[in-house]
């Protein structure tokens, strides 16, 4: 799966996710990538999110919208909301994977409970960051 989140100069947030699914899949299985609120979510004045991982778990936990709801209703910071979901309920049911998120201030956060996640960002100051492993 691949994905992207962005904040533009007008203050709008957007998220995108695309995937080839899982190898050897049958029955027209669809994972979380195409499901708004599970794999993709963007809400102005709040946060944009794209996820990657075991799609069934991400759908069951409506991961992307759960992060957004924590920020909207609990006023959690972006890192707290993301990590609460990825390292909390999701991990507890064996839901392995991660997400990328950006809030309306342009703060970027990567969260994963797996050994790695291919990821990159360019922040508000134009700094480019490319990472692969979880401990980087």
């Amino acid at each position, binding site marked *: 799966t691949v994905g992207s989140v962005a904040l533009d100069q007008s203050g709008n947030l957007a998220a995108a996710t695309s995937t080839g699914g899982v190898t050897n899949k049958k029955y027209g299985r669809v994972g979380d990538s195409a499901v708004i609120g599970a794999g993709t979510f963007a809400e102005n004045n709040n946060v944009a999110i794209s996820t990657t991982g075991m799609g069934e778990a991400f759908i069951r936990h409506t991961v992307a919208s759960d992060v957004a709801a924590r920020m909207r209703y609990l006023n959690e910071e972006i890192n707290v909301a993301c990590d609460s979901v990825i390292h909390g309920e999701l991990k507890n049911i064996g839901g392995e994977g991660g997400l990328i998120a950006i809030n309306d201030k342009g703060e970027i956060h990567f969260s994963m409970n797996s050994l790695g996640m291919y990821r990159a*960002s360019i922040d508000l100051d134009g700094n480019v960051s490319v990472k692969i492993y979880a401990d980087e």
Partner: protein
Amino acid sequence: MTKPFAIAIHGGAGTILSSQMTETHHQQIVSALETAVCAGYQVLKQGGDALEAVVVAVTHLENSPHFNAGCGSVLTHKEMVEMDASVMFGDQKQVGAIAGVRHIKNPITLARDVLKHSQHVFLVGDGAEEFAFEQGHTYTEQDYFFTDRRYEQLQSMKEKGLFALSESSYPDDKKFG
């Protein structure tokens, strides 16, 4: 005065082992990620909207064989690719999503077209492709998506009756999505 803008991308998460990744493979991955994030950033820098920026970034990732999307997609049990994608624009919460498409080179642009040019938000399978062709997307043969790496991966899964989450013959084959 320029208002703040920023972008982030991912190319999948999972069991990615440094001990099994060659330096060449590592460099190819890093290069592909950097190219994609810079492409999206340029859209923002030139005043483009966040929707176009994320679509441009993901399109670059779909065009790389290193990630499980677009031309790097894994194979189904029937040795086909079957791709899903979605986009959401925070302004007015606009949404576009597609699933189970087999002949669209860049599924993310189709999802964007659903958002922009359809009264609906989620199209699947043959219907999604019918809409795609109405929107000017070209028919892409399955050959475009086929790689030896994904074929070998599929055969390995079939032999053991497993799905993608439980086998590894490449450094990142346990990587999800």
